[in-house]
Each structure stands twice: as structure tokens, then as C-alpha cells.
């Protein structure tokens, strides 16, 4: 009963409808309601099938060397250490160390490299017999000198190995999308990618902050604190109500988006539960963490600080995604990424390869959320008994005592 009351309280509020408008607008702008215009199609022989990244040393080494040489000549390196772009200028000392590395890779003298760099001589070549694993080690050292986040980092070097997809590979991708994703899974995943990063990792925090501050703003705290209900029940129900209220439009919109392709994917075995699976498995943890951070910090500080904290986390996470927008499943990602539509056959294999990482990430995020909710319960009860936080208010008002 209390759950329904809390839901009603949220759903009847103006901020909730602003949230709904924001999610509809954000998702509409990404084309998730026009999936029927981008249908999964079987590749035909003789066409172009896009590209893929592959770790081919003969391709990666010259391309990476070329990039490094150009940046070395200009002494201006582009990195993304914490997601944000950063232009690094090396000291003479560090520049000498990079020249040593270039010397080892090209076989040219360090002094020659330093002398020629000013004239921007055309790209030097990788010396014969350069071992790829040694090359990777040297590039990792360059990345360290640059402070990390460069394209020479071990996990980024593959970016220099882009090759066209063959017909057979494209066909294989298509068949995997049909068999594993059953078509709708791929669309649901793309919906989740956009909904997670654009809306659900950040906006629920505002609803949580507003709901938690509502008692104080309505001068209702003392009335509620002295009632029989336990802090655990109160906080858990409010958390659940917020999460459900946020997930309602998500369920609706994910199905609206997915249903766009149901009618036009004739002859295929579709997974009609795919949106629900992705809503619960992919998006729910994002909603949970955003809500839990909002409740926890609002009860802790009695202020809307949670919005700023979650906003910062979201901003770093989104910018971190600049390098990994196509796919990113690292453990502490707020919003995992897998930005692949029907034109790339959803890159289902890539998703399946990283499924364990995604699972760990989602479980960790959900787990952290529950820990935060538990801490919120403890804080709420402590405030209720005047052991914490509430005394700030009492001190202010002690003149009334």
C-alpha cells in the first residue's frame, strides 16, 4: 500500500513528467523509434561490408609508427587519460626518451631522429626484424610517458589494424544476429546503449533528490520520523517506488522502439522478450545506482549534492566512452556501450565475447546500489533519532526550544 502511495507521489509530480519528456526527446533524437528504417539485411556477394579491427602486426606497426612520428615532430600528442581530450607536450628529457624508442623501432640514430624531427621528414619505416611484442612494449612506454590514454596504449593499438570485412565474415555476422539475437535482441541492445548513456545513468538522481527532500520541504519530517514504520521499510519502499516509476516509461519506450521491426521482419524467429531482458539486465542497474546515489547523498548531506556527484560521474563516464563508444564493458563503467546497429549486424560476436565483462559490471553496479541503500537506511534511522544530521537542524532552531 505504501509502495503505491509513493509511486503515486512520484508520478503525480512535475519533475517526473520532465523526466519522461527528457527520455522521449533524447531517445527520439537517436532514432530509436525509426529502427524500421534500418533493418537487418542479409549481405549479398560483391558488396562492401564495412570494416573490422584486427591485430595484424604488419599493418599495426607502420601505422602506429607513422602516427607517433607525426606527433613527435610536432611535440603535440592527443590523449584521453580520463576520457577528456588532453594535448600533451613533452619535456626535452621525455622527448629524448621517445626519440630513443623511435630509434629502436626504425634503426635510425637518436640524434638523427631529433635533428630531422624539426624538418618533418617523411615517415620513417619500421626496421627489418622488429619483434611485435617488443614493439608493443615500447609503445606502452610511450603511453606511460604521455600519462596514459594515448592510442599507443596496449588496448588501443588494435585501432591501427582496420581491415575490410569479407563477404563470408559479413554473412557469419548476419547469421549470428539472426540466431543469437533473434533480430530484436540487437535492436533492444542498441536502445539500451542510448537509453543508458543519455538518460538513465543521470536523470533518476534528480527524482531521488527531489523525493528525499520533499519531506523536509513540506515540513513533514518530524511527523514521519515519529511514526511506527521502520527506517528499513521506508527507505526500501521509496527506493523500489523510484526505480519502478523510472522503469515504467523505459519498458514502454523499449517495446515501442522494438515493435517497429516486428512487422517488417517477416520469416524470422523474433525474441519478443528481448526488450524486457535488456531493460532488466542492462538498464535496471544504471537506474538503481543513479537512484541510490541520489537517496544516499541526500540523506547524508540534506542537500542536492547528489545531483552534482552523479553528474560528474556521468560526465567522466561519457567522456571515457569517447574512446570506447562502439563498445565498452569495463568493470566500473556507469553505462556500458555497444553502439552497433543493423548496418553492422549488431556486432553480436563482439557482444558475446564481452558478455562476462558486462555481467560483472552490471552485478557490481547493482551490488553497489544495494550497499548504498543499506547505508541510507542507517543514516535515516540515525537522523530520526537525532544522532546524526538532524541535529544540524536542531542547532539552528535551538532558539525555539
Amino acid at each position, binding site marked *: *500500500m*505504501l509502495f503505491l*502511495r509513493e509511486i503515486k*507521489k512520484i508520478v*503525480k509530480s512535475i519533475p517526473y513528467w520532465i523526466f519522461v519528456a527528457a527520455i522521449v526527446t533524447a531517445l527520439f533524437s537517436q532514432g530509436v523509434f525509426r529502427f524500421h528504417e534500418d533493418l537487418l539485411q542479409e549481405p549479398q556477394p560483391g558488396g562492401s561490408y564495412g570494416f573490422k579491427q584486427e591485430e595484424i602486426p604488419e599493418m599495426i606497426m607502420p601505422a602506429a609508427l607513422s602516427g607517433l612520428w607525426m606527433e613527435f615532430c610536432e611535440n603535440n600528442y592527443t590523449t584521453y587519460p580520463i576520457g577528456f581530450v588532453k594535448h600533451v607536450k613533452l619535456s626535452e628529457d621525455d622527448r629524448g626518451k621517445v626519440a630513443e624508442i623511435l630509434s629502436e623501432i626504425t634503426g635510425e640514430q637518436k640524434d638523427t631522429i631529433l635533428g630531422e624531427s624539426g624538418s618533418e621528414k617523411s615517415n620513417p619505416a619500421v626496421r627489418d626484424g622488429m619483434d611485435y611484442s617488443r614493439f608493443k612494449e615500447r609503445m606502452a612506454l610511450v603511453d606511460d610517458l604521455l600519462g596514459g590514454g594515448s592510442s599507443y596504449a596496449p588496448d588501443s593499438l588494435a585501432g591501427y589494424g582496420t581491415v575490410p570485412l569479407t563477404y563470408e565474415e559479413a554473412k557469419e555476422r548476419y547469421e549470428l544476429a539472426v540466431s543469437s539475437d533473434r533480430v530484436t535482441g540487437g535492436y533492444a541492445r542498441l536502445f539500451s546503449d542510448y537509453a543508458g548513456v543519455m538518460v538513465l545513468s543521470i536523470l533518476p538522481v534528480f527524482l531521488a533528490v527531489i523525493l528525499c527532500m*520533499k519531506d523536509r520541504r*513540506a*515540513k*513533514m519530517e*518530524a*511527523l*514521519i*520520523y*515519529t*511514526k*511506527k*514504520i*521502520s527506517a528499513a521499510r*521506508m527507505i526500501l519502499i521509496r527506493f523500489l517506488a523510484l526505480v519502478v516509476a523510472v522503469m515504467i516509461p523505459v519498458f514502454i519506450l523499449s517495446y515501442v522502439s522494438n515493435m517497429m521491426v516486428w512487422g517488417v521482419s517477416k520469416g524470422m524467429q523474433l525474441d519478443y522478450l528481448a526488450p524486457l531482458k535488456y531493460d532488466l539486465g542492462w538498464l535496471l542497474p544504471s537506474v538503481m545506482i543513479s537512484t541510490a546515489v541520489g537517496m544516499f547523498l541526500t540523506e547524508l548531506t540534506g542537500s542536492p549534492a547528489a545531483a552534482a556527484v552523479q553528474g560528474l560521474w556521468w560526465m567522466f563516464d561519457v567522456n571515457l566512452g569517447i574512446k570506447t563508444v562502439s563498445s565498452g564493458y569495463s568493470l566500473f563503467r556507469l553505462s556500458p556501450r555497444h553502439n552497433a546497429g543493423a548496418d553492422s549486424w549488431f556486432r553480436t560476436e563482439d557482444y558475446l565475447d564481452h558478455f562476462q565483462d558486462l555481467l560483472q559490471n552490471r552485478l557490481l553496479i547493482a551490488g553497489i546500489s544495494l550497499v548504498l541503500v543499506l547505508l541510507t537506511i542507517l543514516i535515516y534511522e540515525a537522523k*530520526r*533519532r*537525532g*544522532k546524526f544530521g*538532524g*541535529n544540524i537542524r*536542531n*542547532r539552528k*532552531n*535551538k*532558539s*525555539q*526550544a
Partner: protein
Amino acid sequence: MNHSIEIKNLNKFYGKKQALYDVNLSIHPGMFGLLGRNGAGKTTLMKTLATLLQKRDGEIMVCGVPIENARDIRKIIGYLPQEFSMYPTMNVGEAMDYLAILSGLSKTERKERIDVLLKKVNLTEHRKKKVKALSGGMKRRLGIAQALLNDPKVLIVDEPTAGLDPEERVRFRNLLSELAEDKIVILSTHIVGDIEAVCEDIAIINEGRVIYNGTVDALLQAAEGRVFTMTAVREELPRLKGQLSITSMHTQGNLVHIRFIADDLLSGAEVCEPNIEDAYMLYLHSSGLRDILTEDEMGGVW
């Protein structure tokens, strides 16, 4: 179950500042008045009884339950804070229903209890009215109704009549009197008239210390022979104010009739029957407060 509140050697601090000093009280069923100036410590004591504040030391038992057992205390108390409101967009019925759910009432109990309580506080006709549209008096009555949802053994009401017009104040006091028939009702106020009208037992609290604890009759008896009236010319008033503890005065042309407390009869003065306000002033005076007439709420007219 023990049906009284026992407070022994209660001390309360806000940081390093002490707000209550060795408070000892025994409160039994009926109306108990807690009288004191603004900032005397009444709200601190009320909040401590309502489990909203932690005591530093001492012992509080509410109907046999130690105050530390907050969960059980919340089941048997009803609390109306000095400053409160409810979600403004909810109507009276919705607000009551929400708080009844938090009080652990079942659907049937809620329906029954809310009907009875709204009738009791004369808000039945306003059931559909938004909380934000209620007048101050109606809001207070709604506050009392919500405090009674769990049929508490103890009702704690903090400054309930502040800001109410005289008619609402009388109505509210009568309502509290009715409720006190089978409960402990603790009423804190700085308005002497509230106490005089409804309380039999009272405590006067000043600067965190209980300076009187007993019946209203005993308080009046203690003031007998120490309250005087006198008529003087207006020009003498500044001098008299400096010399006497004046509790009220009334100007008539060039004359001023004053009422004051003193240990001995002055020449030109007459002993008069003390009222509760005089007795209250006498206790405050004994506690070292002289310039009582500067307090707006104390200066009466007779």
C-alpha cells in the same frame, strides 16, 4: 502497563552547550502543561520524549518503556511539532491516509480511524480540501488528528496554539482537554492562558532547568500575599518600573494602574488575588528575571 512518564536527572547538550539541566519530572494521565519562555528548553524536552533527540544522560521511561527503545516508544506516542505541515498537494484525507499507513494501520482500521478523527477535529467537511488551502487553525487540528492515528497513550503537543486566533485557540484547548481524559497529554506553551484553562499539573522550565513542578493550585497558593496593585501618576512609571517587578499595567488618563510582585507590601499598594500569570512571573522573578514586562507575551492588561 505503567501509565506515566518518569524523567530522572535528564541532561541534554547541543555540542558543548547544555540545553537541559538535571530535569526530574513525573507525568501522569491528564493534561500536563510545560510552561516557559521562548528558548527555555521546552521543545528540546518534547523532542527528546518524541525520540527525535538523544539525551546525554539521565533516564526516561514512557509508560514503562525506556526511551532508548525508540521503536516501541513510537507505537505509543503521538507527536505534534511546533512547526509542521504536510505535502501541500495532498488533500486532508490523502494526508491522513498516508500517515496512517506509516503508523501501521490496516485498510479497515485506516478508514474507520480517519473518519472518527476527522469528525473529532471538525474536518470531515474539509476532507477533500488540499492541505495548502487550510487555515492555520485547521492545519493544527489536522496535526492533532494525525498524532492520534495510532491511538497513542501519550500525546506530545508543542506550542499548538501559537499563531492561532482567540476562537481557534479556545477550540483547540477544549479539544486537548477532551483527549486528556484517557491519555497523558503534554502541552508545551509560552502562553499562560493555555495552561490556566486546561492543565492541572504543570512544570515551569527556564534556561533548561525545571523551576516549578506541581499543581496549578499550589502555584497560585505560593503567590498569595506577594501580588499587589497600585495606582500612580503616569510620570512616576519610569521610576516604578526600575523598582518593581510589574506584571501588567493599565493606563487611564494621567493615571496608571499597575500590578506587581514583591516580597513586602509597599505604601500605597494593596494585596490582590494572584492569577496564574502572576504566579508564573513570581517564579521567573525568583529565577533572576526582572525585566519580564519587556516580553510581549507576558504583559497582560487588567
